[in-house]
């Protein structure tokens, strides 16, 4: 076939070659008329992942936040870039001035659940970047946690099969993927719930080729827990091509304990291109939308990205509050914070870019106790602040609950 093609080209008369050239120029002119600007400044230079195996971290964006301004992106075959929620708490924005080539894998899938053998193994499952944690499992008398996220699966264990069962995570985004939001986690049960798939936007001013894999699948549930929801993958370029896999499927559930045998909700894959020749191979997951590129990518300004963080816990009689790690694990094998107090505690949180009047809530869960939450305190709370500030909230936790 190749020989035949070469022979044919060799026989082309000059006029045919001129015609081909004109057609090529015409096609290029048409494509140029349907341009897409990724808005990338190129400040983060080229993202070139060629090392075999899994790369779990790349340098932070020069402009802060989670918006990367690359010149080009290349994920080589055999290489995997894993964007985990344990490293990247929010959705990821990859903007590129040039071509984007994904021959390897970009992985934003949520972690699957597991069944703990000791109480300390009750650890929330980790989502893809921009997704939400799956609820931790119960163990013996130690309670579980619901799935995290706007549509986190809920339910509680230990009450039989009445109205209680583990729900899977839901997907709360829309078909525009604006705002960019990942999947929510599934409810923990006898096993931990699956974590939600992450959220990723890749925009190129030239083209995007996916012959490898981009995945933002929800994690599977373990035992009778709920699966995590699929996440969000949005690709925007003048042309999108390739025959790889782009998936945002919901995580499979654990076995059916009562009625909770539902998989996590499917996420959304949105392809925006004037020339979309991408043909998926293998199993695809989530809902797929195709459209022409929007004029506005809705990339958040780094300074405007909202956030809320538990920064420390103040203990009466102790001068300095006990700091919370920047990236807490939520696991009990090595607790994030160790205390030694029988007095009421103060949980300090920091929030920024949160609208005025918003009421934050602090939740606390412990062994064999229902989840407790702080009561709203509206009057003294004034959001947002010009600069990030701390706000202390008194939790209803009692020493006996943590004794």
């Amino acid at each position, binding site marked *: 076939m190749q020989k035949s093609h070469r022979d044919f080209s060799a026989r082309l008369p000059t006029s045919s070659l001129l015609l081909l050239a004109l057609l090529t120029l015409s096609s290029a002119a048409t494509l140029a008329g349907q341009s897409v600007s990724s808005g990338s400044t190129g400040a983060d230079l080229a993202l070139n992942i060629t090392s075999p195996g899994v790369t779990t971290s790349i340098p932070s964006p020069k402009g802060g936040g989670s918006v990367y301004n690359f010149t080009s992106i290349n994920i080589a075959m055999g290489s995997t870039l894993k964007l985990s*929620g344990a490293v990247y*708490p929010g959705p990821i924005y990859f903007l590129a001035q040039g071509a984007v080539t994904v021959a390897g894998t970009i992985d934003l899938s949520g972690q699957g659940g597991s069944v703990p053998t000791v*109480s300390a193994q009750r650890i*929330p499952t980790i989502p893809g970047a921009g997704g*939400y*944690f799956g609820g*931790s499992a119960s163990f013996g008398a130690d309670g579980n*946690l619901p799935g*995290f996220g*706007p549509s986190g699966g809920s339910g509680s264990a230990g009450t039989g099969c009445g109205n209680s069962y583990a729900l899977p995570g839901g997907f709360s*985004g*829309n*078909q525009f993927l*604006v*705002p960019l*939001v990942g999947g929510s986690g599934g409810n923990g049960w006898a096993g931990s719930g699956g974590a939600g798939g992450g959220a990723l936007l890749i925009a190129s001013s030239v083209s995007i080729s996916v012959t490898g894999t981009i995945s933002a699948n929800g994690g599977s549930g373990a035992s009778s827990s709920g699966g995590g929801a699929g996440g969000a993958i949005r690709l925007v370029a003048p042309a999108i091509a390739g025959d790889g896999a782009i998936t945002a499927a919901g995580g499979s559930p654990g076995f059916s304990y009562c009625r909770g045998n539902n998989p996590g909700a499917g996420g959304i894959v949105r*392809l925006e291109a004037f020339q979309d020749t991408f043909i998926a191979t293998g199993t695809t997951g989530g*809902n*797929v*939308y*195709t459209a*022409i590129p929007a*004029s*506005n990518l809705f990339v958040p300004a780094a300074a405007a990205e*909202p*956030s*809320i*963080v*538990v920064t420390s816990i103040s203990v009466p009689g102790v001068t300095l509050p006990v700091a*919370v790690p920047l*990236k*807490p*694990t*939520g*696991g*009990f094998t090595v*607790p*994030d*914070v*160790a*205390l*030694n*107090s*029988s007095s009421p505690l103060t*949980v300090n949180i920091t*929030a920024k870019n949160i609208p005025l009047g*918003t*009421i*934050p*809530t*602090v*939740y606390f*869960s*412990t*062994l064999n106790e229902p989840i407790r939450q702080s009561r709203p305190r509206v009057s003294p709370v004034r959001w947002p602040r010009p600069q990030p500030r701390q706000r202390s*909230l008194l939790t209803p936790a009692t*020493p006996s*609950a*943590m*004794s």
Partner: protein
Amino acid sequence: MARFQWISCGKTIRESNRFLPPFAPWLALLCATHLWAAPAVSTPVVTPTSVVAGQATPVKATCQVTTASGDPALLTGGVNLVRLTSPAGTDASIIGAMTAGSGGSYSYSFTDTEPGPGQYGLQCTAAFSATIRRVRSTAATVTVSPGSPATYAVSSLTFSVLDSVSPAAGPQTHSIGGLTFSILNSVSPASGPLTYSISGLPFSILNSVSPAAGPQTHSISGLPFSILNSVSPAAGPQTYSIGGLPFSMLNSVSPAVAGHQTYTISGLTFSILNGVSPAPSTPLTYSAFGLTFSILNGSASLLGPAPLAAPSLSFRIPIDPVFLKEALARGARTINGKPVCMDSDGDGLCDSDELIIGTNPFRADTDGDGYPDGLELRLGSDPLNPNSIPDLRPPGYFATPAVSVINTIFIAGPALRRQGAFYAKIAP
């Protein structure tokens, strides 16, 4: 000599048989062949008394025949109106005949439906049975003028029709701004509502007086509306009514100029760019406040993306929350990545729903604020107000990762040291 023969024959053939037997056959032959000299009791007068010059078709004339007592009876079918000339220059022909009466004064009316506008010579003849005598009137000339141009109005556009033949032999084809329609004018002036058709839309017009003396009632697709046709081009907005909803229309030039025209229905302003005519083959459906109406009006721009300069609608229709929820669900449904409904601008709303909501189905961002219409409705902002933009934060929810805590304080007794976990979130 002529007078003698006239009198001689007039004194009857009875006398000639007694005094001139040898000459009787010759005299009888002479009297029979010399009709104008035959003796009569009196001289009948035949006159086309009612031929009117300058009349419109059909030509009507009246022949007056006057005979004295004792005159021979008129021959049955003997009174005729003869057209001496014709537009084609053919010979005169008998165009009518009446049953004769007995002696006296008789009036016979004729109607000539054949000739069109032109000038004709008419003459009456009368034949008497007893004397085989035929009397002609002098020729009269009648001039038939073409009908006066009649004025009609369609949607306040005044146009003139020159009706040459009445009643029309068949539908006549006219054109307004390139829109072809047919009129079958049977009687003029119209005695009742006539039904016309423009590009398949039937409407009726009661054409009585032009310009119309008052509002006329028309019907398009069953929706009655009234038009007071006064002056064309219209000097100012005119008020119409469709289904009880009044709206005003400023009709300036036909076909409509390239610019948008502004209309109002119950205070709702909307624009129509009537650019290309004839109209597309299928009526376009619009809706305001749930009232659906169809317009089969050529506007090529409606078949493709609207120009960016198209003015947005300046009102916000209160949207039924149930309808909005259903519309958003319809707009989000896809099969293999393609919307299941017609979504021309890809804004996540079906075209038919956008027409109800009031957004532009061919413009993803009707109000030009940078946010697609479907996105605005999903996130609670107004797609028709550029100052209303959606809240793009994740759906009202931010949460921290869980922070595990262990309290290591010594507790006397068998109680276990318990673990716990904090997390904070902001929810709507």
